[in-house]
């Protein structure tokens, strides 16, 4: 089982308490009616699907209830870091230097 660090609880807890919620940092367009069908399609459905470090949303649904973001390596399934919703995606080079 994966252990995931909730940045609100400041605790590392079993995956069973969490729910995955898709790619992070996808900004809803200010005025959807100004978008072409293709742009709206991209917003709704097109995701990066990276092989490697992926920024993604998780929810501590069976805990504090909060959504937060995580950087997870999709190859190794390893969590590099988690951070509160609204915070910028952490700089990977800084993370690597800290390790």
């Amino acid at each position, binding site marked *: *089982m994966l252990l995931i660090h909730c940045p*609100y*609880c*400041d*605790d590392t*807890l*079993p995956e*069973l*308490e969490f729910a995955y919620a898709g790619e992070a940092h996808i900004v809803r367009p200010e005025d959807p009616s100004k978008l072409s069908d293709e742009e709206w399609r991209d917003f709704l459905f097109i995701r990066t699907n990276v092989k490697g470090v992926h920024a993604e949303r998780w929810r501590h649904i*069976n*805990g*504090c*209830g*909060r959504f937060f973001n995580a950087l997870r390596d999709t190859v190794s399934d390893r969590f590099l870091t988690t951070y509160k919703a609204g915070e910028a995606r952490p700089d990977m080079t800084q993370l690597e230097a800290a390790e």
Partner: protein
Amino acid sequence: MNAPVTSFDAVSVTLLPPVARFNLRIDPKDLSAAASAFGLTLPTKIGEGAQNGDRAAYCMGPDEWLLHAAESDQQAIVSAFDKVRATTPHSLVVISDRELTLSIKGPAAAELLSVGCPIDLSRLPIGGAKRTVFDYAQVVLIRDAEEAFRLEVWRSYMPHVQGILEIATREFAAGY
């Protein structure tokens, strides 16, 4: 209501009498208003609890608390919070009947809970509480002492949770 569900020397599982139970959502900067309405200083760190007589408060999330009180005090508490609502926006929901509470006590209490709880129970502090899961059912786990826990379970999940605890207790008693 108070009869032991199942027990043997090392652990007992008992259904506890009803309590007044509330879910409070409020901005942490307004906590003093909630404290004066409830008559208890609310803990500010997720997982922590505070207790005074039959009043208890457990911090469940950044702006969420679980409150316990005597069943007979329920209406008075609702009224007390109503009075501060005009100046201090918050949500107080009575959830007394949503859950039932099991008491799990004895030297094997933590081991019995580990049958369904994935968290590291040794890290749950005495007096603290945590929302977590018990075999996929969402529960609130409260630790009252080293070997005494309470498990708050939504009514509809209770037969499932109780059934697992009963089977596990029988297995423990048989020496597995």
